[in-house]
């Protein structure tokens, strides 16, 4: 699953240093205050969310040559769920 979520904050030991100018820092602190969060917690959550978004938008999976051939065959035929999936689909309704 998403590695950035693992462990939460309780055993977070790694640090992430970044430079920003005073005005930028104030903007972040002000926003964090409005949410009632520490600036570090706010920054962490925002960065993780944005990282998720970028990863999701570039989510590409690759199949090797043999799989690609099998995949093409499956795509050329009508969708045929196995018995178990057919049952699940029936339960889910139209």
């Amino acid at each position: 699953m998403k590695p950035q979520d693992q462990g939460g904050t309780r055993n977070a030991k790694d640090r992430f240093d970044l430079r920003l100018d005073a005005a930028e820092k104030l903007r972040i602190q002000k926003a964090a205050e409005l949410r009632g969060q520490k600036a570090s917690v706010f920054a962490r959550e925002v960065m993780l969310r944005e990282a998720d978004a970028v990863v999701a938008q570039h989510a590409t999976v690759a199949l090797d040559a043999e799989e690609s051939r099998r995949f093409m065959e499956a795509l050329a035929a009508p969708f045929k769920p196995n018995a178990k999936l057919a049952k699940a689909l029936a339960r889910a309704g139209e």
Partner: protein
Amino acid sequence: MPGIERLDPARHDCSAFTCGEHALDRYLKAHAAQNQQEGVSTTHVLVDASDAVLGYFTLSAAQLELTQLQEADRKRLPRYPVPAVRMGRLAIARSLQKKGYGELLVGHAVRRCLDMREALGVRVMLVDALPAAERFYLQYGFQPTVANPLTMYLPLGT
């Protein structure tokens, strides 16, 4: 009887949700609503009559790269790479596990993908499986990719 709805943060109560995987609990409570608002992924929740969330899955747009395809095969596809839907997460509350709700959620997720195949030409469903869930997806006909057995796929046919 619990039903499945798209996450509505104003109405659905995620606060008590716990499935045994910290990352999945945390995602639902801290990120699901925001990601949905920003168009990154949608979250579909299993809710009871009091709108308490008992399970969920997420869907997002993705792509599948096919390698070394014959030119003739490539021409049979509308686009390249292949447009896909990815189910990034699926979780069920501890109190409801091993009661068949996984089947209900998978059924709904695949149904949504088939709807999207009709609406916009999605050709394949991808799943990111946790190691413990690999067998679960195999049962429904998802196939592991060679590169990563925990990334699984289900062709949606024509």
